[in-house]
């Protein structure tokens, strides 16, 4: 059953997969996807599931250049409903919460990392776009980890070095690697415990309820929701994260690891064509002033992708479907 593009599965099946540890990978799958490290892909699968299913709370640091942020995160599952919380300990001190997110609501990005069954069908999925390999992990937040090195197979995405908890598969540390092996961004647990959330402390100045795309009946999607603009080029392996409503000014795409969004603004004034870029950490903000069917528009691509990707995506924006 599919609701709004998200794959829903029987709850019991997910739990079964979660507790069964790493699936043994027959050799035949490896041959179907040359160069794919089956062990690494199994860990990736496990990581994606543990992100949803494991109860934990801890302190995370997030580093971009000279900037270091610290935040408290918690994740708890009660009766198949996930509650997540992120509280900034630095900067703004804002809090982001997501409550009662159904465990069986698997978004496209996570789905792309859960290759188990796909590999059997000869669909190499994310392994077609990245080369995954295992390496010895280090100690992160007091937990022994395994390391997965993720190397892009084309120029349209970044690489990653990920450390996963040796037992639970939880992503403990992730570095985004740009050109010349430079580290663009680093996310890392400083402390971590696996149990239910303790009551959040006070001092939060602002609480933001994380959004969730509105599920819409699939039957209505034919014909009715025709958008008046479209993105006509995507790097291979990127898929829409949701189904934008008619007239939506945003499109978001993911390959499972990287995400970028495209925004369109119709301008009331003419604009001289040009482009501008700002980059922070692994985030690229690329804005292009152009004309579509004679109408001046501003196309902005924001995401954790290289500039060239953003530019090519912006260049492919056209009128119509």
């Amino acid at each position, binding site marked *: 059953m599919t609701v709004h593009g998200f794959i829903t599965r029987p709850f019991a099946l997910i739990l079964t997969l979660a507790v069964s540890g790493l699936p043994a990978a027959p050799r035949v799958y490896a041959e179907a996807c040359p160069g794919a490290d089956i062990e690494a892909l199994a860990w990736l699968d496990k990581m*994606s599931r543990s992100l949803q299913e494991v109860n934990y709370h801890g302190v995370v640091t*997030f580093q971009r250049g000279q900037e270091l*942020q610290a935040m408290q*995160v918690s994740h708890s599952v009660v009766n198949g409903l996930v509650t*997540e*919380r*992120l509280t*900034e300990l630095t900067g*703004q001190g*804002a809090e*982001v919460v*997501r409550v009662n997110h159904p465990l069986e609501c698997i*978004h*496209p*990005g*996570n789905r792309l990392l859960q290759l188990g069954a796909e590999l059997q069908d000869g669909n190499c999925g994310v392994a077609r776009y990245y080369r995954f390999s295992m390496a010895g992990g280090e100690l992160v937040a007091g937990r022994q980890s395994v390391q997965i090195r993720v190397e892009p197979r084309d120029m349209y995405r970044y690489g990653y070095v990920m450390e996963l908890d040796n037992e639970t598969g939880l992503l403990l540390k*992730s570095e985004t690697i740009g050109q010349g092996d430079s580290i663009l961004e680093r*996310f890392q647990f400083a402390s971590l415990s696996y149990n239910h959330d303790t009551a959040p402390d006070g001092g939060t100045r*602002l609480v*933001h309820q*994380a959004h*969730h795309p509105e599920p819409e009946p699939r039957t209505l999607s034919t014909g009715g929701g025709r958008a008046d603009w479209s993105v006509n080029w995507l790097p291979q392996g990127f898929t829409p*994260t*949701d189904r934008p409503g008619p007239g939506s000014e*945003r499109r*978001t795409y*993911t390959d*499972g*690891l*990287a*995400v*970028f*969004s495209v925004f369109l*603004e119709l*301008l*009331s*004034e003419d604009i*001289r*064509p*040009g*482009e*501008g*870029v*700002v*980059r*922070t950490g692994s*985030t690229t*903000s*690329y*804005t*292009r*002033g152009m004309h579509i069917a004679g109408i001046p528009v501003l196309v*902005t691509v*924001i*995401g*954790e992708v290289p*500039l060239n990707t953003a*530019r*090519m995506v912006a*260049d492919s924006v056209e009128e119509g479907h």
Partner: protein
Amino acid sequence: MSEMMRESLSALMDDEANELELERVLAKVAGDPELRQAWVRYNLVRAVAGGQHPAHPELDVSARVRAAVTGRVQGAAGLRQRFARPLASVAVAASVAATVVFGGQYLARMEAGNYGDQAVASSVSPVGLVNSLGATSVQASYGTQSVPVLQPATRTAYQELARQRLKKYMQEHAEHAALNSPNGLVPFARVPRIQE
């Protein structure tokens, strides 16, 4: 029309309104014919007082300006801080509209070096895009008064646009990144300022 709105409108024409006020006024102007009339009238008075002949006093420009303002107030405020108010001499309407269409001499005051590390050094577009160099200030008519609207011509201007759009859109992007990348809610850490 309330006295307060009248004052706001007047302040708007006298370049004293801040951007937040401007947005509020324009929101009202859009839905209030009387207020719209007043907007045109003030424009007329101003243009005549300034020795300019109003070109099209009947022209309702508020919708246009409003469209330019909507959702861009934050960016405009950021711009202001950065410039230490060099835009004060320009009509507020123009300066706010300029968050969409802007550039030129005001931007030239920004020290390009400040952003050097984040800028992509003289990148050549593989898709055949040519960046225009040099800024020209052109006259754009907002109804009766002529206000300078500067076309985005310099790389710096577009870079500022990209910076504003990053602020504007990062949270919406993070909402989807949080559901579709393996870091949970951590993508929100990339949002410059989280809004409720």
